[in-house]
């Protein structure tokens, strides 16, 4: 089984997010970058499906040389080889075009990525790539099982789940629960240094959208504390002041 996993390089979850350049760019000072947590789930699932000689896992990342550490970590976790498309990941549309362009003649059975990146939360790459390659996509997969040429995928819906039977090839955006994230072991870390990491050029993609400005949320005022013995007061405030009940 030939699997492609798309990974992105994102600020780690403890990062305080601030902006520079008149609020047009993320302030990267002091920010640690990690593999997007949802992509880590996708990667772990792919490795599980491929291990024991059942297949191969290629990871692809769109990024400049600063993403190499994250890509090596993915190799250390268990991917077989990697590709970096040498370009700044301008937006999901751009990234999806690079992935689709790479994948289009490689006959991957399954393409996995995280359901969204924790920086842009777009939930777009899986569906964009699906459309560009003309294959089915599931954007928030909670469970994926492969039997022969068919995938049984559970996708999240409000209040529950939908179970789908989909013929391969397909692309899925993985959510929590698809796989336990794997941690690289010593052997993995050693072998990651010599696993293939190809760097390829990006193709041109028309610009359809751009972020023109960032904003940080308004800070809330100080909390109004209510005595633990006076819950009726809280209800009164919620009804009359906040007007939420």
């Amino acid at each position, binding site marked *: 089984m030939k699997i492609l996993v798309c990974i992105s390089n994102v600020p780690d979850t403890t990062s305080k997010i601030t902006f520079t350049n008149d609020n047009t760019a993320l302030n990267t000072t002091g920010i640690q970058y990690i593999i997007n947590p949802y992509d880590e789930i996708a990667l772990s699932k792919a490795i599980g499906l491929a291990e024991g000689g059942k297949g191969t896992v290629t990871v692809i990342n769109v990024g400049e040389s600063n993403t190499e550490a994250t890509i090596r970590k993915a190799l250390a976790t268990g991917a077989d080889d990697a590709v970096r498309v040498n370009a700044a990941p301008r937006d999901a*549309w751009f990234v999806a075009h690079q992935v689709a362009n790479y994948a289009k003649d490689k006959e991957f059975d399954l393409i996995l990525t995280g359901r969204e990146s924790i920086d842009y939360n777009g939930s777009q790459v899986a569906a964009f790539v699906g459309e560009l390659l003309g294959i*089915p996509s599931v954007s*928030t997969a909670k469970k994926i099982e492969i039997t022969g040429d068919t995938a049984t995928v559970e996708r999240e819906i409000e*209040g529950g789940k939908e179970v789908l039977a989909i013929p391969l090839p397909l692309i899925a955006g993985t959510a*929590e*629960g698809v796989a336990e994230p794997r941690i690289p072991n010593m052997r993995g870390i050693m072998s990651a240094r010599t696993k293939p990491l190809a760097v390829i050029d990006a193709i041109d993609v028309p610009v359809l*959208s751009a972020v023109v400005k960032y904003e940080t949320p308004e800070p809330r005022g100080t909390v109004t*504390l209510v005595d633990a013995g006076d819950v009726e007061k809280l209800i009164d405030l919620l009804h009359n002041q*906040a007007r939420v009940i």
Partner: protein
Amino acid sequence: MPILVYTENTDGKFKKTVYEVVSYAKAIADDLDTPVIAVSIGDVDQSELASLGNYGASRVLHVSSDQLARFVNQAYASVIAAAADHTGSDLIVISNSFSGKGLAPRVAAKLEAGLADGAVELPRIMGDKLSVKKTAFSGKAFAITELVSAKKVIALNPNAFEVRQTGDVAAVEAFNPEIPSDDFAAVIQDIVRATDKVTLPDAEIVVSAGRGLKGPENWGMIEELAEVLGAATACSKPVSDAGWRPHAEHVGQTGIAVSPNLYIAIGISGAIQHLAGVSASKTIVVINKDPEAPFFKVADYGIVGDAFEVVPKLIAAIRAYKGN
């Protein structure tokens, strides 16, 4: 050119989030002096379809072929693209629900349209350019995104725009676009949905609890508080990681981002990742026995106290309040 709005139905009925997205489309349409046309796919009865007029749709295109009765994002994206073509719309609005997330990018890709996903307010339109504020960095920030393509798609977040009623009725017409058979590769085998609970992503009130509850066996009072408030239940990451509650309840940077009117956090300290997921809540109430808990710094109201004492009292007081 009319604004096209996709109106997702759940078992043949429209939820509040659909009325929100129609109202949103109507507000944009009024500014541009153009009508709103809704497209609805599946088995929905005439009066339900016509009722979309009350939220601003002047026409509803109803796609009722059997093949399209159940949601398949590939096929539905083709329908919406066909509807956009048919109506001459170059702005399509979709709700950012779970289905919407799978659908909007495919629609945008088909139309080579810029996509603003996670919109939280009305867009600014100046000629060909549209800019709209959307969430970014998992709730830690907002991004003003400009769409520069000829066609544009906006995916609106639940509970980000109010429902506005006009008192009108929409004209319903049948629409039967040809959809390629390749679009139907995915087949739904089963749908499992709790119909009696309030669903978390679009809930107006959320009751959430964390490690302070000590164990899954103590969740009865959380569920009871949620029930008495008509709320959805949620939890922090350690709780879902430990298997005390399902992943679907996990609110946070790597879970769900919620945007309720009221978020009640019980026994949750307020780690930065959890706070990211709740930042869009209009009012936050924190109940925690630790006065230094970081969550109090972003709370609107707080009670410093033992959850096991405070929550039962709160439940009783709300019952009394509602009884009046």
